[in-house]
């Protein structure tokens, strides 16, 4: 028995994509998340990285119960979320919060900022008086770097960075145990990104909230997370403590992803330093057989076509799925 806050076990998420036609081919499914397992401990940040369509957001939604997994389990403090009763589910919804990528469209344009931030308290802390709610809302606004006098304004009067502060205030006001940040800083200007990352880091230090930090940006994930899950086409490639991943990536895809990030160093010319994988990400509707990464993997062999690599432990808290990791990069 671990004391993990959240355990995800062999999770699958499938989306139905059209029907198989008149002749009864059956419905077709797109597997967005395939056999993913990990845990999040109290107070830690787990990062999820990967490119378009790798299943990052679907995984986040499955955890939040916004899509129904087609296989596997999500355990919240040891309890299967699909078996929870109403009361437990209600508690769960306040314990897990989300911050989305698009700051403006995730805020109700007809509500004032004060109403938006106080709203979750209405639902999850009905015992509070209007006055108490208001006080908590103002404290929260100030905590995320907004001013109390902004409470009567509407979301469209705010910049992207400020809208993200509002979303964070709304998420944090119910004192959640976990926040899922899905590309929460990706749409922000460079000079605002660091502000919002720092705000999340501060809030975590103060409240001990855990984070699932989803992003396509490796440098940002490295700054935010202590452990990192690398996904490709719905599958786990590597799950590793941060420094091990960046200092010594063991999986060919992790390696490629890290090598593809341009370094802010004028002495490293692009052609000499940037590693570019061949080809592009295959359609998730017809993923490659065997290892899903094999069509782009520089180390692929016939074994990679024939069978799916199983997850193996490489070290404490470090797993990966590759047939050949033992013989690569030594």
């Amino acid at each position, binding site marked *: 028995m671990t004391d993990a806050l959240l355990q995800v076990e062999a999770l699958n998420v499938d989306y139905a994509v059209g029907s198989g036609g008149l002749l009864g081919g059956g419905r077709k499914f797109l597997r967005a998340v395939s056999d993913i397992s990990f845990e999040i401990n109290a107070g830690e940040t787990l990062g999820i990285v990967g490119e378009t369509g790798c299943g990052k957001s679907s995984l986040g939604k499955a955890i939040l119960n916004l899509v129904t997994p087609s296989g596997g389990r999500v355990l919240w403090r040891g309890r299967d979320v699909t078996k929870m009763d109403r009361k437990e589910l209600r508690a769960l919804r306040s314990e897990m919060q989300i911050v989305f990528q698009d700051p403006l469209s995730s805020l109700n344009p007809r509500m004032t900022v004060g109403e938006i931030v106080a709203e979750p308290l209405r639902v999850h802390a009905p015992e509070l008086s209007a006055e108490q709610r208001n006080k908590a809302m103002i404290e929260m606004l100030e905590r995320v770097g907004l001013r109390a006098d902004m409470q009567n304004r509407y979301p469209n009067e705010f*910049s992207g960075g400020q809208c993200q502060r509002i979303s964070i205030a709304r998420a944090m006001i119910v004192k959640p145990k976990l926040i899922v940040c899905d590309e929460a800083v990706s749409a922000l200007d*460079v000079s605002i990104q660091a502000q919002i990352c*720092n705000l999340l880091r501060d809030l975590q230090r103060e409240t001990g909230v855990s984070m699932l930090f989803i992003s396509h940006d490796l440098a940002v994930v490295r700054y935010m997370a202590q452990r990192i899950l690398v996904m490709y086409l719905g599958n786990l490639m590597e799950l590793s403590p941060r420094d091990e991943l960046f200092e010594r990536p063991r999986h060919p895809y992790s390696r490629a992803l890290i090598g593809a990030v*341009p*370094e802010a160093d004028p002495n*490293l010319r692009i052609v000499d330093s*940037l590693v570019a*994988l061949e080809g592009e990400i295959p359609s998730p509707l017809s993923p490659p057989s065997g290892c899903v990464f094999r069509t782009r993997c520089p180390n692929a062999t016939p074994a990679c076509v024939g069978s799916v690599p199983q997850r193996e432990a490489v070290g404490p808290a470090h797993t990966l799925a590759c047939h050949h990791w033992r013989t690569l990069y030594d």
Partner: protein
Amino acid sequence: MVEPVLKIRDLSVSFAAGDQQLAAVSNVSFDLNEEECLGIVGESGSGKSQTFLAALGLLARNGRATGSVLYRGQEILNAPRHELDELRGNRLGMVFQDALSGLTPTMRIGQQLAESAERHLGMSPAEARARALEMLEIVSIPDPAQRLNAYPFELSGGMRQRVMIALAMICKPDVLIADEPTTALDVTVQAQILRLLDGLKRHTKTSVVMITHDLAVVAGLCDRILIMYGGRPVELGATAEIFSGPLHPYTAGLLRSMPTLSIDPEVDLPAIPGQPPDISQLPAGCAFAERCERASDRCLREDPLLTARTNARSVACHFPLDGN
């Protein structure tokens, strides 16, 4: 002294919005030299795109440009449409973030490429087709002969961006302007396109302008960079010098606040406080003053102009850093 390919002086762009004039770009001056790669870096809305759209005569209807843009000594700012059309198709190529917007959706890509070669290079249809194929090979499109028959929508984002680059480069232009060409792409595909651009830069005589919000993208690619803020040029110089010793407080702040793969993730990044200015309410003085720790009264009154510090470096700041 060789004349620069493009010489931009006091270029300003404003947009009519109701009864207001929005100053999107103010007094931008710089040269683009023969065979160089110049990076234009700034946050969204800092005026990067409008600077070049104005230079090429592509401003929206409500936009107005003043100043001067000399292409090999010839004034092209607000030049007649047919002149600009010819220049754009032939001597000044442009690639956008969204490659679909630069390609004709209803035309096969081979046809689009060949048409440009026929029109601007005076090639016969057969020659133009051969040139189109050669261009697809240069930009590393797999199965180029088959791909000539594809429509833009049949290609992935990365492939479309390659086709866009092929189209911009087919007439061996003097200048290739790439506006956030990799921003919409996945990292592994971005790496491919950056390598392609770096290769083109080395193997052709074309000068490249790389417009981006990402300092890391220009670091390994550009010889010089121009940093923009609030529609103004704030710092110009050799890439290596700007990275090792920024003169403008904004540049210094940006460099410090970037999460890169080499920072210590345990240490908090020093973020620049505040937000980029809203161009409908630009302050009287320095556009960065509200966020600048060096700001004094003078900064609130007087807008600093881009001024040469040495012959290779310029900065727009009343109290610049010492660059060490």
